[in-house]
């Protein structure tokens, strides 16, 4: 009697292990699929236009992706918890404008102070988002749709009261150098993005709070039951997203040098596209930083390819939209297939 029930228990455990293995294998397949798609794009475009394949061009792609990737890392934290942050473009726009203006007014100031200012501003905006969502219990979509326009309005008010545009000649060379310096031959911008991705990736993979973010996204109620402090963690995710947008804004100002009140408008669509193309499930609970960064690289590569193939840039936005839809549809189909497979296995067991 006991042996049979133990047997049943053992098979059940084994099937659970199998399930977990299946799910992790699928997510690995999702990322390597992305990599294969990337290589495919590179080969196809490379045949059409050989100059696409130069090292210099790849560095250009990574440079243009770096800022997007930093923002996408923050967005991933939020999306994992089954929320969304639509205000990222406005947060980047605000911090880029204020930081550039700060350097224009105080050209002699310590570089680090300006960077900290930008990050702090981003953090504050993110905290406001987090407060509204987790403690005000306003759905993230409504809250961040509101702040998307509210923060953008702030940029316009700031611009109306200061200067309509900060030009490259207005800011100290040290600030602009942030985007052009190389460390060991690697552009600093790429290095910063990589370091952030690695740190946050490690945090998500191995830290207590990181795992809890996944738990909240896969089942908010269950997370609550096992004593995860959902509000705090969701708040933290929004605050982190704001902080990373702040940093991205500082870098944006340095890279594009000329900033006005409309800078980074519509960035949220690129960021969400990168995140979902990268396999971060929009329902929350699954996805990795590596995936999100790969997603950003794929989008950046496609953008660059359009440029090189002389295809109108007007296709870009439609492409982002199609990428979002395509990725979400693909994920839905994979999930459906997975559920069916697991169910079939369970029946067999």
């Amino acid at each position, binding site marked *: 009697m006991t042996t049979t029930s133990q047997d049943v228990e053992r098979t059940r455990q084994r099937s659970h292990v199998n399930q977990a293995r299946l799910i992790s294998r699928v997510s690995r397949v999702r990322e390597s699929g992305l990599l294969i798609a990337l290589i495919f794009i590179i080969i196809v475009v490379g045949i059409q236009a050989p100059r696409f394949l130069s090292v210099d061009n790849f560095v250009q792609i990574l440079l243009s992706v770096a800022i997007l990737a930093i923002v996408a890392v923050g967005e991933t934290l939020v999306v994992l918890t089954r929320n*969304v942050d*639509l205000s990222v473009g406005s947060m980047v726009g605000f911090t880029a404008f204020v930081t550039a203006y700060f350097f224009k007014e105080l050209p002699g100031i310590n570089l680090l102070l300006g960077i900290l200012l930008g990050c702090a501003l981003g953090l504050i905006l993110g905290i406001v988002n987090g407060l*509204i969502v987790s403690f*005000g*219990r*306003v*759905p993230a*979509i*409504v*809250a961040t*749709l*509101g*702040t*998307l*326009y*509210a*923060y*953008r*309005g*702030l940029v*316009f*008010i700031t611009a*109306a009261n200061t200067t309509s545009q900060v030009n490259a000649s207005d800011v100290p060379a040290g600030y602009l150098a942030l985007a052009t310096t190389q460390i060991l031959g690697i552009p600093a911008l790429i290095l910063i993005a990589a370091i952030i991705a690695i740190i946050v990736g490690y945090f998500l993979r191995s830290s207590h709070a990181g795992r809890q973010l996944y738990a909240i996204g896969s089942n908010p109620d269950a997370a609550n039951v096992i004593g995860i402090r959902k509000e705090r963690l969701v708040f933290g995710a929004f605050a982190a997203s704001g902080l990373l947008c702040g940093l991205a804004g500082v870098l944006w100002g340095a890279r594009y040098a000329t900033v006005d*009140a409309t800078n980074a408008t519509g960035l949220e*669509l690129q960021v*969400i*596209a990168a995140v*979902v193309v990268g396999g971060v499930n*929009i*329902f929350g609970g699954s996805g990795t930083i590596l995936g999100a960064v790969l997603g950003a690289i794929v989008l950046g590569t496609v953008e660059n390819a359009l440029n090189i193939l002389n295809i*109108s840039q*007007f*296709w*870009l*936005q*439609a*492409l*982002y*939209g*199609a990428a*979002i*839809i395509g990725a*979400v*549809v693909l994920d*839905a*189909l994979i999930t459906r297939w997975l559920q069916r497979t697991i169910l079939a296995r369970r029946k067999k067991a």
Partner: protein
Amino acid sequence: MKRLRSLLFTWETLLVLLLLIGCVIGSILSPYFLSGFNLEYALPSNIMEIAIMALPMTMIIIAGEIDLSVASVLGLASVTLGFLWERGNPMWLAIGAALLVGVVAGYLNGLLVTKLALPSLVVTIGTLALYRGLAYVILGDQAVSNFPTAFTNLGFGTIPGTQFPWSVLIFATLVIIFAVILHFSRLGRQLYAMGNNKEAARFSGINVNRIKLILFVLSGGIAALAGIIFTSRFSSARPDNAVGFELDVVTVVLLGGVNIFGGRGSLLGVILAIFILGVLQNALSLVNISGDIQSLAIGLLLIFSVLGPNIARNIQAVIARRRFAVGSSKQA
């Protein structure tokens, strides 16, 4: 007495109050606010596209979904209209094609939401980018503006004998239709049932997916209609027409007291909210505050229309608890 108090504290009463306050502030800010031309023509014509799109949005949100792509459908329809007219097609064909584009766009939204069981939020963020992108693909950075007078009169002209623009008549007709459907028909009750509990609605025999599909098609078609009105009002078809209008549409619906999670809300509240938004935009424009800064006010309005009731409920709960505590200590 109790009834009076409950009447005083309904959301709609609050909205009427807000509207009156807005009008008073508007008339203080600018002497032109209360002029007949402003109240009958400028204010309504500026808000009518948003008002029209808010009607199907009300139904969609009551049914527990959302459509963020409306402004992009408006833009795509407008561009379709302009593109076909510029290529020498008759106006009726261009208008028909624009409406068809809206219906197809809505149908695609609905298919993705129903067939693949995807959340409408994500689907319509994707199509928000997609449809706007297609508008750019069709017209690039060009604009079509040589429309026939008969068409632009629809936007510029007024109903004979009044100063109201024609769009007010379209809106009024639609309001009656939508009010009847939402509040006096079986379909209307089914929408509320879906919003309250989708599973229960399905088990009680409501064809949830079919209704959702109809709602998204309706939303797309109406957004295209708004696109036609917008094009005739500005006599211009541009790919960036009405960028960001989804904010205004969602704001008026939620400010109107429709629950973001579905199941609750009335058309009356939404109509009041439309007027509040109209007064707000109009007053800010009269004192020369730019549209970009107006968005700040509207964004905050959106957040507070959900945050406000949440906070009020929390305060009520605290008061009730305190009262309960006082009551029980008295008994002891």
